[in-house]
């Protein structure tokens, strides 16, 4: 098992290198640079700035320096937010994004899974249709529509919750977490329903029914265990979806997480900040997928690590 984890981590290194390389050159391909402003600056001053940030050196040299620094865990200074290093910005923003993501994921599972189970048990009856209709709406309404709507209703009209910001404790988290979780709740519910139905019709469940086992026991011991496996493998992509969703949600609710740095960084051509966030996200998604695979193996005896 440990050997497997080690092998996977080793395999992740080339992936990360590819991510770094692509991101490094792609962001520089975009027209315009980090120090272009509405007001053009005299060439001598531009030269001062380029020297200060080593932008005057040839690209391969810059790339080499960047790799060396990343190996030492240093993402460099932010080009735009000059008082902060990229590592400091990520360190400050990540706990916020993490809270947002973890709560959204929990919410998705706590509501989505029971809803899916309920729908499956009442297949083709009003309860099923109701849950699926709500889920379909959840998937089709994008969160950049849902988020301002929630803010308008619960913040501006009802005054129950703050409209934006991250400085009023749990209250500021409610709306963004809901907005971020909604599409995932819907996915979880649909996935759970489908996989429940499939498991319910499999031979070993029929056998269990034939043996006269009580419904509760069949559900808990036999159906859920099998039905949860596809949901488990969905957790990997769901994490990625929550991370990318968080980029939008943080922007709308003015939340100081790293998703916002990613958007602003790209728009500002803040090369180092974008690179830092990309590498960080890349590593995070690789780790999450690994984690899911390990848990999968623990739950499904058919999986072997060799």
């Amino acid at each position, binding site marked *: 098992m440990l050997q497997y984890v080690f092998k996977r981590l080793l395999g992740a290194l080339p992936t990360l290198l590819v991510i770094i390389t692509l991101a490094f050159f792609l962001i520089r391909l975009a027209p315009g640079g980090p120090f272009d402003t509405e*007001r053009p*600056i005299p060439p001598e*001053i531009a030269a*001062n700035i380029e020297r200060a940030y080593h932008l005057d050196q040839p690209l391969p040299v810059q790339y080499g320096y960047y790799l060396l620094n990343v190996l030492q865990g240093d993402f460099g200074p932010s080009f735009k937010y000059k008082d902060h290093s990229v590592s400091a910005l990520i360190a400050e923003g990540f706990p916020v994004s993490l809270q947002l993501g973890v709560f959204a994921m929990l919410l998705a599972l706590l509501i989505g899974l029971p809803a899916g189970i309920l729908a499956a048990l009442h297949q083709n009856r009003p309860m099923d249709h109701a849950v699926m209709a709500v889920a379909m709406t959840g998937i089709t309404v994008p969160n950049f529509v849902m988020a301002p709507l929630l803010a308008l209703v619960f913040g501006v009209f009802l005054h129950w919750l703050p409209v934006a910001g991250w400085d009023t404790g749990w209250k500021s988290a409610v709306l963004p977490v809901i907005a971020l979780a909604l599409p995932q709740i819907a996915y979880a519910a649909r996935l759970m329903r489908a996989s429940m139905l499939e498991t319910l019709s499999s031979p070993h469940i029929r056998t269990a029914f034939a043996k006269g086992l009580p419904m509760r026991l069949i559900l808990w011991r036999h159906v859920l265990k099998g039905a949860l496996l596809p949901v488990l493998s969905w957790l990997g992509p769901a994490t990625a979806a929550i991370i990318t969703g968080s980029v939008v949600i943080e922007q709308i609710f003015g939340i100081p997480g790293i998703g916002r740095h990613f958007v602003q960084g790209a728009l500002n051509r803040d090369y180092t900040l974008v690179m830092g966030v990309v590498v960080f996200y890349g590593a995070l998604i690789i780790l999450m997928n690994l984690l899911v695979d390990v848990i999968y193996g623990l739950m499904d005896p058919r999986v072997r690590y060799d």
Partner: protein
Amino acid sequence: MRKLPRLFLALCLTYAPFSIAETVLKRGNGTEPETLDIHQSSGVSEANIQRDMFEGLVTEDAFGKLQPGVAEKWGISDDGKRYTFHLRKDSQWSDGTALTAEDFVYAYRRALAPETASDYAFILWPIAGAEAFNKGEQKDPSSVGVKALDPQTLEINLKTPTSYFLGMLMHPMAFPIPKQAVEKASKDWIKPENIRCNGAYCLSEWTPQAHVKLVKNPHYRRAAEVKIDSVYYIPTEDQNSELKRYRAGEIDITYDVPSDQIKTVAQDFAAEFRNTPYIGTYYYALNLENPAFKENPKLRRALSLALDRDILTEKITQAGEIPAWGWVPPVDNYTQQNMEEKSLDKAARTKLAQELYAESGYGADKPLELEILYNTSDNNKKLAIAVAAMWKQVLGVKTNLRNEEWKVYLSSRKQKQFQVVRSSWIGDYNDAHTFLSLFKSDVGEMNTSGYKNPEFDRLMAEAETQTDVKKRQEAMEQAERILLADTPIIPIYYNTTQHLVSPKITGWEDNVMDVHPTQYLGLK
């Protein structure tokens, strides 16, 4: 009955904390500040915060007008090139140490040092020796014409008499910085634990993308009159979200108002909506290197005359902008200039435009084809569509629109890859020079059109060295008339600024510079 006094006392005690509670102001501030280091930033969001934290030799009052700051008085030599500032004796940093002329010398040298890599350093170039030192041609920092004669006296020598120099000193680039703190902490001097301020407030905490919190500086000279204890500057990049936060009472003053909602906001918040002329002009620059426009002033003029600015501002932008027939917006010591045809009625202007268009070699059988470049925004798009429609209707010009994301647009503009480009210019100081100097032939990229006229250059050079206010004004006015006659640009409107200001705020004064230091504000 005996219980009553006790009850009263209890009530008083319960309410006491409210009566001495600190007054807190929450201001929407546009983008997240790049940095608070005065030598590294150039944006409006940063300047708003820096003006609260630092005070220059001169400063602004609640109306944005110049008044003495750290210097209580000053003298100007007869040739207009030597300024002697006398600093207040009790000037202090927020830790109680004395602020001296040496702090200014240190600040200006740091601003200009090539290693500092300050993008706005050129604003100090009127100082003797500043440009050469900034460009690295001269290595000795003492070659910069700023000297501390004694701790309370600062002498600044200029390259040429620069009549807007005092106004320029209100810019954050000309603020002092605490020499000791900067030398000790180097780049980190701006962190809350190291910083010293000399303004009404000082930095207390900064959570990127959440807020910058400033608290009152007890050592500030006007501390007794400063009413608000702490102020939060909140980044509000998304204007719609900012408006929602204002409506929910989470922000007291907005940075802006979404342009598509100005009409409803003006109705719903009539008493709180502030729409004020701003020192800026929105214009279309014509690329004079483009064969269509090169040496074809008649065509340029026809395009300008074909635009009905009243419709563009009343029906399209709808934010109370002022239609522009000239380049320089209303500024001090200057009579606004206009294109001659401003006085004509619309029919006469249209006829003239058509005649000029025909004379320049175009017509129904040979229509002009143009492309307008603008940076992606609803406002720019609506305006470009309307302009294209007017050109089509009046002259029969075929116009394509090209929108580009901000940095891409800047790069195209820099490389002159456009025929017509939308631009706007916001003045650095309240003087016509900050507008007219854009069209001198030697300013490089800033001259978006690539305009060159020796007579214009001569008049500007005259204005720059003239010490007589009246003659200087005349030279600049004449220069603008030449510029307008040559038509390298099509001015469209003079900008306005929009804010929502909560009714509980006192001391807010609308002004053309759009500066509103917190020290003049109060909370009811």
